């Protein structure tokens, strides 16, 4: 039954652009898919207590590589994308390997990744001669101008990007599921509970953590490329740094990072909510939408740390089996194991 439901859902998603929906609707759908993918990528590591506040850095590193190679050397994004991914992987490795080796966890890991996000953002601004600094940059139009350029990945019709984003999101779900069903998941959960105990069982802590971090970084970087290529505009504030990194985290948390559909539900809610409030309040009360959003975030983290999808799931399970004992409730995002630094 679940299988059929999934296929039906997929059929609806594929059919959406063929029904000629309003462009604004299609635009939002694309954004939700891309942010859903980024959220999924983040939760690949976030669910194991590896809370990264620097995923914005991976967004920025990837897309700026693609855009700069295209603008400066005319290199097609098809070659730029692997190079950009490689750069993000390198960043993840540079931060992850020592961090996991030296057991930097919890707060400390979050703050180190936060610094990484800032490093990427400031580097982009510092290289303003080529990147345009805080003003942002636009990838050159493909010459001669055409409506559909697969070579430059520039499309006048939003449909193309819709399908690309859909494909990428599905791919990220597949990756998420692969991790969910692998032995690594058990290992990583053990690590997040107690790193020393896990190591004593013969789990290679550094390798396990590094693997999900690299996967997460690569997927995030692809998400950033989609954003940049779709918008055809890059800005360091919206593609790197602390603000955007926190937004990635929040969308994943609101939706629920312990379940596959959680992050996209979070993206749907945050984007839908924000756009809804924006159209409702219009030009009056600028900031009202975000104020309510911020308030909701706090409430969510306090009362519903498993996110909306997680809460619904728990509720359904409880109803399905009322006599059974309540589901084991790891109600909180799992801790980074005890933080060091008190000794």
């Amino acid at each position: 039954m679940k299988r059929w439901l999934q296929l039906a859902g997929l059929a609806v998603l594929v059919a959406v652009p063929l029904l000629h929906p309003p462009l604004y609707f299609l635009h939002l759908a694309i954004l939700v898919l891309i942010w859903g993918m980024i959220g999924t990528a983040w939760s690949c590591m976030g669910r194991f207590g590896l809370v990264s506040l620097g995923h914005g850095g991976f967004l920025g590193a990837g897309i700026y590589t693609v855009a700069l190679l295209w603008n400066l050397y005319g290199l097609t994004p098809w070659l730029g994308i692997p190079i950009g991914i490689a750069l993000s992987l390198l960043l993840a490795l540079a931060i992850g390997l020592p961090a996991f080796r030296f057991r930097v966890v919890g707060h400390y890991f979050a703050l180190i990744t936060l610094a990484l996000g800032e490093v990427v953002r400031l580097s982009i601004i510092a290289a303003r001669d080529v990147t345009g600094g805080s003003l942002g940059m636009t990838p050159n139009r493909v010459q001669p101008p055409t409506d559909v350029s697969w070579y430059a990945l520039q499309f006048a019709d939003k449909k193309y990007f819709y399908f690309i984003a859909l494909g990428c999101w599905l791919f990220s779900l597949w990756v998420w599921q692969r991790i969910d069903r692998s032995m690594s998941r058990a290992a990583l959960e053990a690590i997040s509970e107690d790193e020393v105990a896990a190591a004593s069982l013969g789990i290679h802590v550094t390798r396990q953590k590094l693997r999900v971090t690299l996967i997460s970084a690569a997927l995030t970087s692809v998400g950033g490329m989609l954003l940049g290529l779709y918008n055809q505009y890059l800005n360091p504030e919206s593609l790197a740094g602390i603000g955007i990194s926190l937004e990635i985290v929040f969308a994943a948390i609101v939706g629920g990072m312990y379940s596959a559909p959680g992050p996209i539900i979070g993206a749907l809610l945050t984007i839908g909510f924000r756009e809804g409030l924006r159209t409702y309040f219009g030009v009056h009360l600028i900031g009202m939408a975000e104020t309510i959003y911020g308030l909701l975030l706090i409430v969510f983290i306090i009362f519903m740390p498993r996110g909306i999808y997680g809460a619904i799931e728990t509720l359904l399970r409880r109803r399905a089996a009322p006599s059974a004992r309540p589901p084991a409730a790891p109600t909180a995002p799992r801790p980074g194991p005890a933080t060091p630094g008190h000794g």
Partner: protein
Amino acid sequence: MFDFFLLEAVINGLLFGGVLALLSLGLNLVFGVVDVVWIAYSEVVMVGMYVIYTLHVMLGWPLVFAAPMALVGSGIVGVLVHRLIIEPILDTPPINQLLATGGLLFFLQSLATLIYGSQFRNIGLSLPTLEFHELYISFARLLAFGVAVLGMAGLYLFLSRTYVGTAIRAVAQDRQVMGLMGVDTRTVYLITSAVGGALAGLAAVLLVLQQDVHPFIGLTFGPITFMICVLGGLGNLLGGFVAAFVISQVISIGSFYVSTELSYVIAFVLFIVAMFIRPEGLFHRRS
């Protein structure tokens, strides 16, 4: 070879370090005692700046009265943050508390946008630039430096000479045992949060003298403040104080040789590397 401009950079770096030290003081206190990272700490500073702006510019209070109100205002914010956000989730993983205050960051930013708009506001007061033999020094920074030293000393006296201060230090050392010994940790946390907030207000008073306030000002100095606290060793006030000057020199001299952004990049990279080498902070004494 003596480079005159380099000297100026060093001196300005020293004074800039005063501002950073002041900024990190309150955060460090809360960090050390309650063991919570207020990601929204720099937004509490922003609240203090807006309090001064509101009272001084919009309501016409003299600055002398408006400035202490900034301390009161952000002190109240500190109490509220603790009571409403931190306390309900004090027993959950620390990362939850960090993220909840992250929500607060968005909330305060947007609330400021809602109330004041996103324009840059200033209190219309410009302090003179001092000149010693063609050496230019910002008076506002000199003032901030002085206040940072005084604030540091005051906090030290408060923690070491008063009864409450002693309780705070005791809780910071061992929260479980102190609870068993009959110390009301809840009150201690609350007082600490109030003092931490008030210190943010103190930083706000000095920042508003040299910078325009706008809703996103927190993002400009927030990250560097966290780095300093961690670099100095969480809760290690003296360590944080020294780290502030190390970082400010890196930034100031870096700006002199390369560019401002790159000097921040260097500072952040230094922070990351330092965390790998000495995760407990640069000035941690191994016991």
